[in-house]
């Protein structure tokens, strides 16, 4: 019997045993298995899509999916990313405009059921026949100006509008300050616009005497909801005095205002009252009042109080009040959102205040959790937390914890907008580059995030270059330079100077391929500056030092031809070029001239040295005459440049 048959027999044993046991199971009657049918789990129409989506995470090696997946069409620089995305959005807007102008061509009903988003919007003018239904539709579609127009039409025709619709309209126009808003469809514009919103912040933008107020006056017997809507709108757009007036008016009438109305007033307490004491008393009064009328506080109340406290200076009172507030709301069962923690952070960690490690205490509360957007301020948390890790605490471990939280589940949705995202990464990068070993930083952070997730700004690039210089790890320079070219950093004088200086100060060992690469980078810089557009704003100009550095790189690579081009440039445009190269570079050039047996070039260089006032010109001339046999003409011009003295004793030919 050989092994295989033995094996075959052994492997047959198991099924045999099974076969024996099965009947005994089959006939046993004492096992009563009850089949339990699980309860049906109700699923939404997009649940499967969401489940699928949760299996995919962001791939840092691929560009964002909003861009075309084609090497030529993927933007690399920050400007490019913005331009490409906005250009797409502009195309989308153009299509919307066409549809609006030629609405009659788009009224076919292809989809069943009809999808409203594909149909042109109904437009109204002075002669439209309208009903209250149209008004309701405009309100639910957030068409602020349409809703106003329809309302006026209805009024002029004397059609009665129900109080509910009137209230809805009032809430709409108050929230949007009687202005149309950017449609939610244009996500790119929402993602990239940030500056305008920051500017508008904290400034009265409420339109006095606008449609909202007109509507409010037109409502007979205003209710608490009517008052609430107007107060909310006014405090949202910083018309604070009148908001407070209305609040008092409503109270005199004995109306019970909503919790959100109270919140909005607490939010703007800094505009209403002068100092800490008065503000805090005002807040406490409002909260007591809420309690009296039986309105329960919510997350908005917590965040409003914390927001107000965060702007009350860096005194100890504010910090104590923050803790007391958190304590009390915890007892009420209101869980703080990320926005609340943001306010706590900015109260505790002031730029010119004592160092506070409160972020260490906050992290355990929020770590390993998925957070939903519950307050507008929630999107401020991550960028602020990272700022504090970098500037306040210099704590790399904490920064990594914050970053892990950001990438947990769908928390990345709370990053805010493109501006906040890039600030977040700026802080993260600069903190890591200064704390991690360079190799680890490059492999685990830089190569992973750049350029698809984050494109370093010039200031961050400077930091990276600084570390490369400190560590002398110049092998990263070619990669960094190519990145800088892609990111449009190469028109910045300080960055170019830094790169050149690093390459000059860290001379690669002989036979290293870096010598060649460095020379290429140098030449790349030369060509870039040389071929710039004449009419360019902020033109780069050659300096003597810069040209000298490029020349040194070319010479190290034994590229005498390119060095000569630069020497000619220095010579010809010496009145335009500021400064002169270092003496060592010029001396190196003369050495190469000697090797190349090119005395006339060497003499031109010595002439340049003499003109620039280098006392070493004489030594160079001596070196030249020592090593090369010069003809009469050359010696004649040399003597003319440096005089006889340095050459005395070396040659016997007189100039005249």
């Amino acid at each position, binding site marked *: 019997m050989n092994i295989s048959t033995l094996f075959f027999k052994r492997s047959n044993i198991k099924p045999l045993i099974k076969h024996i046991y099965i009947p005994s199971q089959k006939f046993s009657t004492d096992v009563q298995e009850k089949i339990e049918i699980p309860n049906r789990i109700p699923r939404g129409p997009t649940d499967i899509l969401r489940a699928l989506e949760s299996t995919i995470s962001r791939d840092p090696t691929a560009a964002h999916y909003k861009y075309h997946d084609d090497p*030529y069409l993927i933007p690399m620089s920050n400007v490019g990313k913005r331009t490409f995305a906005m250009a797409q959005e502009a195309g*989308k807007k153009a*299509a*919307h405009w066409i549809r609006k102008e030629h609405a009659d061509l788009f009224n076919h009903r*292809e989809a069943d059921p009809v999808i409203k988003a594909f149909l042109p919007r109904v437009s109204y003018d002075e002669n439209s026949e309208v009903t209250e239904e149209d008004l309701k539709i405009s309100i639910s579609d957030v068409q602020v100006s349409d809703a106003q127009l329809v309302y006026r039409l209805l009024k002029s025709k004397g059609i009665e509008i129900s109080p509910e619709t009137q209230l809805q309209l009032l809430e709409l126009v108050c929230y949007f300050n009687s202005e149309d808003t950017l449609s939610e469809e244009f996500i790119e514009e929402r993602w990239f616009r940030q500056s305008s919103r920051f500017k508008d912040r904290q400034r009265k933008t409420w339109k006095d005497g606008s449609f909202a107020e007109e509507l409010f006056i037109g409502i007979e017997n205003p209710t608490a909801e009517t008052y609430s809507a107007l107060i909310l709108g006014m405090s949202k757009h910083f018309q604070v005095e009148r908001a407070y007036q209305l609040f008092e008016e409503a109270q005199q009438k004995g109306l019970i205002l909503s919790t959100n109305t109270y919140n909005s007033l607490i939010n703007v307490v800094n505009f209403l009252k002068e100092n800490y004491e008065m503000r805090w008393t005002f807040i406490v009064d409002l909260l007591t009042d809420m309690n009296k009328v039986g309105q329960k506080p919510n997350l908005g109340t917590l965040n409003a109080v914390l927001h107000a406290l965060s702007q009350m200076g860096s005194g100890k009172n504010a910090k104590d009040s923050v803790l007391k507030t958190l304590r009390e709301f915890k007892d009420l069962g209101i869980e703080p959102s990320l926005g609340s923690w943001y306010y706590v952070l900015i109260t505790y960690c002031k730029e010119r205040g004592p160092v506070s490690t409160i972020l260490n205490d906050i992290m355990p509360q929020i770590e390993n959790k998925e957070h939903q957007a519950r307050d507008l301020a929630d999107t401020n948390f991550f960028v602020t937390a990272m700022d504090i890790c970098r500037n306040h605490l210099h704590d790399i471990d904490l920064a990594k914890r914050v970053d892990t939280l950001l990438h947990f589940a769908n928390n990345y949705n709370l990053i805010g907008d493109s501006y906040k995202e890039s600030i977040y990464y700026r802080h993260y990068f600069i903190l890591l580059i200064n704390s991690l070993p360079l190799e680890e930083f490059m492999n685990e952070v830089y190569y992973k995030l750049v350029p698809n997730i984050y494109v370093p700004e010039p200031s961050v690039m400077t930091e990276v270059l600084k570390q490369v210089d400190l560590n002398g790890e110049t092998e990263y320079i070619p990669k960094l330079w190519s990145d800088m070219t892609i990111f449009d950093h190469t028109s910045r004088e300080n960055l170019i100077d830094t790169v050149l200086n690093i390459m000059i100060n860290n001379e690669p060992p002989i036979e290293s391929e870096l010598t060649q690469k460095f020379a290429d980078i140098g030449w790349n810089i030369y060509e870039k500056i040389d071929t710039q557009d004449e009419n360019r704003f902020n033109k780069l100009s050659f300096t003597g030092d810069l040209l000298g550095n490029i020349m040194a790189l070319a010479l190290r690579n034994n590229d005498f031809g390119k060095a000569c081009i630069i020497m000619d440039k220095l010579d010809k445009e010496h009145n335009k070029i500021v400064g002169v190269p270092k003496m060592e570079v010029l001396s190196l050039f003369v050495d190469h001239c000697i090797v190349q047996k090119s005395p006339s070039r060497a003499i031109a260089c010595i002439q340049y040295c003499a003109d620039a006032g280098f006392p070493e010109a004489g030594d160079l001339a001596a070196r030249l005459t020592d090593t090369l046999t010069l003809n009469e003409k050359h010696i004649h011009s040399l003597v003319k440049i440096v005089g006889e003295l340095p050459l005395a004793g070396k040659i016997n030919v007189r100039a005249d």
Partner: protein
Amino acid sequence: MLNANLICKTTVLGNLKRELVNPDGFTQHQHVSNPKLDGTGPPQRKDFPLTYEMANPPHQIAHRKTWNSWNTTNLQGGLRPSETAVEDQFIRKFMVGTWHRLLRYTEELLSFWLQCPVKLELQSVANKKDVIFKYI
């Protein structure tokens, strides 16, 4: 039977030579007279570039390019076959008629028209010559 099969295949491949397989297994080439090739026709300069799409003469389109128009509406009992064909043609004409860089514009307008999401994927080549399939 075998012979017929082989002949059929080579015709599909569009060779100008017709291959005949003898029962004894030897292959014999029979040249079909072509005025362009045998020198009696006008001279061929071979300097006019064609892309792959252009390089298919009409009699080969059915063989090589049918898959471009295969879709489930053409199955028996399929819904709206004619509409799909018209829409297909519409998209092509629209793409050519619109400036091709206006990607989002095209996507958006087509989706308004066809009332479903429309996505365009463009591919670019570094060199114009990369898309040349052959010269005639």
